[in-house]
């Protein structure tokens, strides 16, 4: 079934008949980097449209809901917990950078739901890292 899907979606394009999936030409880390910067972009590059759309919608949805709940965007690493939060937030790639530039997200957690919002934003970043690594695995042929 995975082979049929690959034929339909065109995964493994650029590979010659008989060659290993991982021996495709081009920059092998491009889906990983694109997937980190823009949620789902790594899968879109590999023409996995359905998977990319689901991942993009899920991660974007979590991030936006987190902001709507007045979640906090970590700005600096004052202590180890803030450092971990910042690492999670950075997983969102351009979403985090643009949100910081636009001044979105609360500076201080003031309502109960803001704690959940902060958690949503951090987890969205971590899920985006998982999605980017998945795109990399698809690119190298480690996953069908």
């Amino acid at each position, binding site marked *: 079934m*995975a082979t049929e899907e690959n034929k339909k979606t065109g995964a493994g394009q650029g590979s010659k008949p008989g060659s290993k999936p991982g021996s495709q030409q081009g920059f092998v880390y491009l889906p990983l980097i694109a997937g980190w910067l823009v949620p789902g972009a790594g899968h879109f590059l590999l023409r996995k449209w359905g998977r990319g759309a689901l991942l993009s919608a*899920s991660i974007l*949805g*979590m991030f936006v809901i987190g902001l709507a*709940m007045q979640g906090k965007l970590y700005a600096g690493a004052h202590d180890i917990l803030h450092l971990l939060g910042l690492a999670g937030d950075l997983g969102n790639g351009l979403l985090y950078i643009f949100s910081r530039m636009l001044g979105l997200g609360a500076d201080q957690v003031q309502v109960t739901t803001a704690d959940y919002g902060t*958690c949503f934003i951090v987890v969205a970043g971590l899920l985006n890292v*998982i999605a980017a690594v998945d795109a990399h695995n698809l690119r190298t042929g480690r996953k069908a």
Partner: protein
Amino acid sequence: MSHFLAVVLFAFFASIVFGVTMRDTPRRMIRYGIYCFVLFVGAAIVLSWLMFLIAR
């Protein structure tokens, strides 16, 4: 937004990502996504009741 709705939304989105990234075929993705969703929400309900009973 209620706490339960937050749990359901969290479980929904996280389960989609887990399903898509951890399995190879669409059928297995859906099954694993549903499995994760049930575990997320089920664990939240069970732990909530436990904390409620302990607090009494």
